[in-house]
């Protein structure tokens, strides 16, 4: 589900994002996205057993280890790794299961959707946020946004 109304609901309600597979290397797409989300007011919780801390946030080994409620599980892992992550996302009570650009896994998506999570696949959370609330339009991308109203959330 990546229609404009669904995405607006995801961003309006979910402010805590667990980023699974977040890299600490500044030039990796996952780092780009997580830094962008932090700058736009989201709480980012890194999930990656290789690091103690990323972007100044404590890094967890798995979703199960995170003590706080999670709204969005954002997955930067290869498609084959996604099924157990979907199962964990259901277990910890996340509301959105989001697979990044280039990642689809019908089985993982079905597990999450079956448990009532909203599922987004093959999309970048940073790009979709900037598409709806400003930013992506500055680099010539066809956002699909047609409206006679001022943007409802101002980008930073």
């Amino acid at each position, binding site marked *: *589900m990546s*229609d*404009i*109304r*669904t995405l607006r609901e995801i961003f309006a309600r979910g402010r805590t994002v667990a980023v699974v597979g977040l890299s600490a290397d*500044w*030039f990796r*797409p996952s*780092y*780009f996205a997580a*830094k*962008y989300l932090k*700058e736009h007011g989201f709480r980012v919780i890194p999930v990656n057993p290789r690091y103690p801390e990323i972007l100044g946030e404590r890094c967890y080994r798995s979703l199960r280890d995170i003590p706080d409620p999670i709204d969005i599980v954002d997955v930067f892992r290869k498609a084959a790794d996604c099924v157990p992550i979907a199962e964990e996302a259901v277990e910890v009570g996340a509301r959105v299961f989001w697979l990044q*650009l*280039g990642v689809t896994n019908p089985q993982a998506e079905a597990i999450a959707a079956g448990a009532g999570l909203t599922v987004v696949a093959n999309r*970048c959370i940073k*790009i979709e946020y*900037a598409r709806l609330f*400003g*930013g*992506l*339009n*500055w*680099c*010539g*991308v*066809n*956002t*699909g*946004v*047609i*409206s*006679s*109203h*001022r*943007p409802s959330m*101002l*980008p*930073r």
Partner: protein
Amino acid sequence: MSDHEFGFDTLCLHAGQVPDAATGSRAAPIYQTTSFVFDSPDHAASLFNLQTFGNVYSRLSNPTVAVLEERLAAIERGRAAVAAATGIAAQAVALLNVLEQGDEIVAARTLYGGTLTQLDVTLRKMGIATHFIDSDNPENFARAITAKTKILYAETIANPSLNVLDLAAVAKIANDAGVALCVDNTFATPWGCRPFDYGAALVVHSATKFLGGHGTSMGGVVIESGKFPWDNGRYPAMTEPSAGYHGIRFYETFGDFGFTMKCRMECMRTLGPALAPFNAFLLLQGIETLPLRMERHCANALAVARHLEGHPRVRWVNYPGLPSSRYHDLALRYLPRGAGAVLTFGIEGGASAGAKFIESVEFLSHLANIGDAKTLVIHPASTTHRQLSDEQQRAAGVSADLVRISVGLESIEDILWDIDKALDKAAS
């Protein structure tokens, strides 16, 4: 739930711009500025590293120019676009984005002269070889593809020979070979034909012509479909760390608009043909009425073509919208709403009559452009191609008797009146 799909005419008016966040301005504001302030050193670093979206310097992006880019991407049904100062600059940055020394292009040999020279002379100097082929037979593209071929290049409607490209056949050849097809859609405009619908990977425009539509502003654009698999092994520049920008892998990082981001951050940044914001504003004004103008352009052109076809002072008429054209079937398939505004005809009396015709018109404008709201005429043999021998002119598809008309939006009776009067004078 899926999003509502807006029609072409709505997109021409709305795509790319919502009312300004700060002021509520309904028209697209002209951001006449070179640079944009950073909130903090960290914000500046994020922008330079492409970790956040924003504007830094108008050579890379500008909010007024961005409205034009998004609108063109939308009306071509593409994913993203980057604008340049002219059409010829736009195609140069599109090509240089993926081509390097030793690479090859296969191109139609009927291309516009400026494009032909860009490929045959300028790019060849850089070690990029173009094979020119007869595009009327799509198989000629397939025969010329080698392991080094990165781009197939053609025009929807060729200038000035007006060949109509068999887009679906050429796109299939390109996609089967894993080579990106780049189409110059200037003559057809997205109102007439959308090359992405048939499988093209890239579309370029001289926005100077029908998109702007009023002969006021130069501009060009490159649009990517968002569907071409740049990671198919043929385009390491798209998938490997960029030497031109911080080691970023553009296709991995930006996916279906990676080509556009690379074009912006490498080619626009280092070659510099940025479009002026004021030109972008004027081009946007033009696009708002593109559907209405193209309808009238095509109707008037067809009326002129029909009028000339039976005319005693005219040897031949070339317009894909006429049943007598060898491209009529292709025009019916790819240009069902109209075969464009440009036609050529052969004047009885040859070169001297052609020159006399041009001198004798009352309000048709003698100049080297097309796509103005006003009707434009030119006699290539006595002007743009004058320095060539008869033989060279023939090779370029320009016969001594050829007159080109870009039919405008004036009252059709007046256009025919001026043409008839000038034909009479040319014969006397």
